[in-house]
């Protein structure tokens, strides 16, 4: 009775418990499960359904299942549930495919580096994020070297690129000679393309580039390479250079160095098989192959998709028609048909006698496919940006690329995040289709191991196992997109 009479100063009254019947488990159950006769029936029916479904399901998955066994018959003796022993026996193959046993540490290392590279990209609170981002820029090249092997020049150039070119382009002072913005991205992209195209040409095509510099001698060629690399690094040490010159200098000499390296073939005395044994891409398989296709597809298709979307919105008719035609064609046909085109028909379009790595062909198709879908998602975002934004940018005197990069795209991409991530998830799931043209992704490994007479008839276990892997990957991606959406939501909520 004391509390009822006590007087409190305004605003100091302690919170009282809600009245009985307005809180607690019973209230919750009444509100959410038994609010009307219809709901009572629905709840009871669902509960009965769960009672029928869950115990056998968990029994099969966990309780009655067998985790260690030698054959299917052995499994059946030990328990009536799933035979996970089969998966356990083949786990190495499911993870690495037919990657040589002694070289598997490279895949593991590559995956660890991948996780490390993802941290600064996905989490903007990471300590020393800027330095990590340099590493993330170098990662694709390092990963390429680790997985394929060779003398490591790709990785070396990747590190040079990430540690010299990227910082120079992004962190050089902007001076008057540049105007408002220098379009640093353009420089970086040019350098990367020069680098990648030549590098890939060298590795994947059987036709060799020979421009007749073999006669120069190893020492001379190495010296030229070193000179070009040195020139690339000049802006790091020469503080007095103007901003624009620094950018052009670094990217230009980097592209030249890369070009020279790949046509000149300098290898500092290492043979191409010297540091890491070369592993053919047809030995890639399992979850590793899924990750390779998925991650490459995601990284390459996003810029391509944005370009396509911009092209489709362009005022230039021919560019618009080409982009629209391309997007609509790709979206109109199933990926599997495109993969068949890649595996059967693509060779007709190349010069006679050229041989083209199957994995690369598949990657190109996967990238084009998801770029077309991304383009539509991004276009939705672009259309949602009021026209006033571009007009304001025009009025400020920004050029087309500047207004896109600084004004329109940041807003458009922000609102299209859910769609973009959904496309990524779709791409990641679509990597399974490569099994149909004979690549050994987890499904391929699974089907191959199912033909083992010792283990016949265990298809459910295999597919459930693969389904769980994909569920974990895709579900975390969609959760991340929700987190990102909330983080970037700077406007006011409507409700």
């Amino acid at each position, binding site marked *: 009775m004391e509390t009822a009479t006590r007087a409190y100063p305004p605003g100091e009254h302690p919170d009282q418990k809600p009245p009985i019947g307005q809180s607690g488990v019973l209230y919750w159950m009444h509100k*959410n499960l038994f609010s009307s006769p219809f709901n009572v029936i629905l709840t009871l029916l*669902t509960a009965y359904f769960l009672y029928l479904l869950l115990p056998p399901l968990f029994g099969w998955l966990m309780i009655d299942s067998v985790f260690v066994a030698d054959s299917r018959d052995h499994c059946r003796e030990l328990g009536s549930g799933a035979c996970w022993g089969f998966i356990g026996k083949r786990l190495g193959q499911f993870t690495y495919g037919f990657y040589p046993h002694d070289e598997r540490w490279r895949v593991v290392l590559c995956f660890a580096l991948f996780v490390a590279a993802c941290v600064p990209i996905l989490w903007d609170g990471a300590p020393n994020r800027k330095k990590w981002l340099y590493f993330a820029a170098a990662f694709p090249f390092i990963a390429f070297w680790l997985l394929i092997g060779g003398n490591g020049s790709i990785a070396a150039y990747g590190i040079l690129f990430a540690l010299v070119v990227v910082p120079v382009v992004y962190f050089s002072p902007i001076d008057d000679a540049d105007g408002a913005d220098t379009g640093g991205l353009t420089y970086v992209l040019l350098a990367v393309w020069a680098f990648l195209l030549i590098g890939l040409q060298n590795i994947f095509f059987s036709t060799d580039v020979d421009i007749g510099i073999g006669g120069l001698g190893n020492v001379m060629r190495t010296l030229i390479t070193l000179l070009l690399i040195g020139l690339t690094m000049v802006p790091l040490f020469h503080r007095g250079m103007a901003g624009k010159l620094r950018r052009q200098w670094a990217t230009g000499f980097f592209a030249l160095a890369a070009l020279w390296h790949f046509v000149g073939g300098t290898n500092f005395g290492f043979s191409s098989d010297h540091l890491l044994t070369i592993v053919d891409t047809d030995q890639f398989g399992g979850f590793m192959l899924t990750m390779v296709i998925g991650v490459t597809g995601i990284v390459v298709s996003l810029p391509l998709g944005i370009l396509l979307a911009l092209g489709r919105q362009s005022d230039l008719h*021919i560019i618009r028609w080409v982009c629209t035609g391309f997007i609509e064609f790709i979206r109109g046909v*199933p990926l599997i048909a495109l993969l068949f085109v890649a595996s059967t028909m693509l060779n007709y379009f190349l010069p006679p006698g050229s041989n083209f790595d199957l994995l690369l062909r598949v990657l190109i198709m996967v990238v084009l496919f998801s770029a077309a879908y991304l383009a539509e998602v991004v276009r939705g975002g672009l259309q949602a940006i009021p026209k006033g934004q571009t007009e304001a940018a025009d009025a400020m005197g920004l050029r087309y690329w500047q207004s896109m990069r600084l004004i329109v795209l940041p807003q458009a991409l922000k609102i299209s995040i859910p769609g973009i991530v959904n496309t990524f998830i779709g791409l990641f799931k679509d990597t399974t289709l490569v099994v149909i043209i004979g690549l050994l992704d987890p499904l391929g490994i699974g089907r191959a191991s199912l033909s083992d007479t010792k283990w016949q008839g265990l298809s459910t276990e295999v597919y459930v196992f693969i389904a769980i892997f994909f569920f974990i990957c895709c579900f975390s991606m969609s959760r991340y997109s929700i987190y990102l959406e909330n983080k970037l939501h700077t406007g006011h909520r409507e409700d």
Partner: protein
Amino acid sequence: MSQSIDYQAPPRQSFSIGKIWTDKRTRGLVIQLLATLAICAVVLYLAGNVVENFQKLGKPFGFGFLQQEAGYDINQRLVEYNSQSTHLRAAVVGILNTLLVAVCGIILASILGFILGVLRLSPNWIVNRLAYCYIEFVRNVPVLVHILLVHGILVHSLPKTRQAIDVADSFFFTNRGFFVPKPIMEPLFWLVLAAFVIGVVYAFWYRRMARIKQAATGEQSPVFWVMLGSIVGVPIVAFLLTGMPLAWDIPALKGFNFKGGMALRPEFLSLWLALSLYTAAFIAENVRSGIEAVNKGQTEAALALGLPRKRTLNLVVIPQAMRVIIPPLNSQYLNITKNSSLAIAIGYMDIVATIGGISLNQTGREMECMLIVLGLYLTFSLVISSVMNWYNNRLALVER
């Protein structure tokens, strides 16, 4: 410094080489010209390679091979086909199989998807959690895994032909497929069909007239019951009057397999079920977001106007929700059609498996076969999206 500014007409733009890149309009022209040249160059290069490759291999290009004997069997077919038929015939069988699974899939996925979408919005906690779990699990697993999983379960878990699960002695479930009675039309059955057509025509005519009448006088007619009566009732009456001219061919176990009746093969069943279950999860999400997109104020306003709950739903919420639901639904239907190409993984003979698979391997005509397959899928996509666009335009908000 108060100078009077002379406003003059801008100087006439005279042409000079330096302006090509600085003037916005000429720059646009130059870029387009360069793009055209580049595309032409690429196309010419590729075409040149193709011609050279064909010459080198000594292959002619042409579709004459479609008239050759295919020489392979297709177990799932809607039209007559045997191994002596032509490749063209095989392609037709493949197209029909693709359409069959696509249409069946679209129907089942829509039904399941709408049910799931509504369950997902249910205030009942356990029901909406269950729907949520289903949707999230199914959406995040590749459709190919679903297809193989369902196929594996159908083939490995159902009993063999001898121990078929028998429902009412006319439905049999085995690992070789489901066997169900097949309706056989007797001569008079066309009268029932005619009655059905007349019923449908009359129902829509009646609805139209009722609307005109309501617009003119405000009187309402019992549209629902009249439509139900003429679409369902009239054919039933006709069916009974003509003496039930329909017989059932009931499957029976003869020898090693079932004879008679209609066989739903495990390949078709698993593809159909997997595609429908997978796409239903996506449709459910579309339905949910469509219904959630309708502002709560709309419902409240309708209730305040005195509309009963059911009419609020029918006249206010659903029409507005459909506007949001239709475009993504369109792409889901397209997805089912395109995903049906995964049939090849389990041996269902769709267009990719017949003309793009076995025919391609037998004749070695990669180019022609793939062109046919790509062209067909583009046609399907165009047809589906134009139908859905037509429907969408009908529903769209009429604006100024």
